[in-house]
């Protein structure tokens, strides 16, 4: 495994250098004209202070998300083409070791460009007049890296549950934005904001941590939200890692390039979307409900590449709609 790791480090060096250069140029272009001080503006009744200070840190997080998606696909799409499956699986290495090597290489490919562009960003801030307490740049950096690894692990798990690249990408998007989009507004009367469960929203907490500094952060933001969010995502990440290696052992190489019928791909995401959209996001109009049901059906069409639904699909389709209405009823009663 070490030899393979060394091989990939050598092989990916150029890719990593190119990615780093592109990212550093993007950071430079974004930050070259940016201002990091607050400006006083005259409002209708009183003057107000505009502080555009979060922007560079927000950009870094956007880059982290983009890199994570790109390198998840880059490293693991080998299992979605028969020619690469033949090549990689015939090599004298256990699949768990092969996947672990790919996983580690992916982390390097994301972290190195991210770190270099982070340094460029901090240097650009330092050279200008700014309002940042840059002492907090160090914990913020490690926070970003930590949650990038959590997001990467999550996406690797989701992507590798699919049998072709298109399905992998669709399911990455479905999963990534499920907790972010679908759960927006799904606040029960006890006031819990479910968006904190999203790995993407998790970045937001890290970002604010930097902006205000730790003491101020506690005052301004509910620290329990960050703790719940972190614990949830870390536990989920650990479960995914365990499942990842369990599934690798059972993996069927012949499934490559076929439809993705696994439990954690469309078969989980489409019913989840259907149930939660019906439960919370629709108003009481029938047309909205019909649109959601049609969208759900289209999901199965994309999954099967056919208008015909299998028996299993029909059960999931009907079941998720039914569950959505039941959940909606319960939420209205509470």
């Amino acid at each position, binding site marked *: 495994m070490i*030899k*393979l790791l*060394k*091989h990939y480090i*050598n*092989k990916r060096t150029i890719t990593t250098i190119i990615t780093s250069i592109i990212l550093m140029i993007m950071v430079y272009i974004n930050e070259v004209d940016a201002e990091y001080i607050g400006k006083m503006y005259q409002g209708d009744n009183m003057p107000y202070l505009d502080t555009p200070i979060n922007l560079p840190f927000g950009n870094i997080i956007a880059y982290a998300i983009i890199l994570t998606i790109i390198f998840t696909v880059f490293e693991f799409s080998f299992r979605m083409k*028969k*020619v*690469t*499956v*033949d*090549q990689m*699986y*015939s*090599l*004298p*290495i*256990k*699949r768990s070791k092969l996947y672990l090597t790919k996983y580690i290489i992916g982390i390097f490919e994301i972290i190195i460009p991210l770190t270099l562009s982070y340094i460029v960003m901090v240097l650009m801030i330092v050279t200008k007049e700014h309002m940042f307490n840059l002492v907090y740049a160090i914990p913020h950096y490690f926070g970003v890296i930590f949650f990038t690894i959590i997001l990467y692990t999550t996406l690797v798990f989701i992507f590798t549950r699919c049998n072709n690249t298109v399905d992998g990408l669709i399911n990455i998007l479905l999963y990534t934005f499920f907790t972010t989009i679908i759960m927006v507004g799904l606040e029960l009367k006890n006031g819990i904001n479910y968006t904190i469960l999203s790995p993407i929203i998790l970045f937001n907490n890290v970002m604010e941590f930097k902006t205000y500094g730790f003491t101020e952060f506690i005052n301004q933001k509910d620290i329990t939200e960050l703790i719940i969010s972190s614990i949830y995502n870390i536990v989920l990440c650990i479960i995914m890692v365990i499942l990842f290696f369990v599934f690798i*052992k059972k993996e*069927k*190489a*012949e499934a490559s390039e076929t439809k993705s019928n696994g439990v954690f791909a469309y078969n989980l995401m489409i019913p989840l979307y259907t149930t939660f959209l019906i439960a919370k996001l629709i108003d009481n109009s029938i047309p909205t409900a019909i649109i959601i049901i049609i969208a759900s059906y289209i999901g199965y069409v994309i999954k099967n590449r056919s208008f015909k639904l299998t028996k299993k699909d029909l059960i999931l389709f009907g079941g998720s709609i039914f569950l959505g209405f039941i959940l909606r009823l319960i939420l209205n009663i509470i």
Partner: protein
Amino acid sequence: MIEIKNLSKSFDNYQVLKDLNISIEEGRIFGLVGINGAGKSTLLRLISGIYNKDSGSILIDGEEVFENEIVKKKIFFLPDEPFYSSHVTPYNLCDLYQAFYDFDKEEYIGYLNDYKLPIKKPMSKFSKGMKRQVFISLALTIKPKYLLLDEAFDGLDPLARLKFKKAILKLVEKNKTTVIISSHSLRELEDISDCYGLLDKGMITSTGNIDNRIESYHKYQMAFEKEIKEEDFEIAFIKYEQIGRIVKVVVKEELNEFSELVKKYNPLIIDEISIDFEDLFILEVENRGYLND
């Protein structure tokens, strides 16, 4: 030695291999034949540890192959569609294999030069035959104990085929490599294989030494004074072809015995024609109900 016992493999509900049994001794060149979709590629992928079996066992030197790094290090598999990508050249392809096998890069380059391949050109621009030649060069450099070749001659020009066959024979002679070759080019297989297995309906239905098997059949060409039909003979032919007064038959009987049998039909001439591996294959598949009009 490769020992396969009661091997079964299904894809969803379609059973490809069913209770397949076969042993291939060390240093043999085994020709794997069968009609399209018979399961040859599946069998090779199972032996090389790419696919996992549903049941049965695949033992190589007494050990199961799937997820066995030590056993897999002895195997090199060249699939029907070899790997390629836009950023992989023959020159840098070997880097991956160097991580797993004892590898002499100069020797590899030598083989590539023998095939006159552009070593620094992306393999995505290569023809199928050229890609295959790159992997043949890899295989010859690695010198595996077990070499598995799927559709071995596909895309190779006659000169490359000749070079390839010579190289395989040399590899077997020098390293006692066991080779399994699946191919539809039966004449090429006959040239280098010393034994064969016919895969049909998920099982090896016929196996053995090619020469012995061919010798067990006899093909005769006869000419008669007037047209004569198959049902006019009181002989069960394995194969019967007729063009006018000329009849070609395949039987198990030797020439003397057969001449006695057909004497009463007064053939003008009886000539024995040689049977090759392709004839043997057609006979075998015809006997199993294929190709019957």
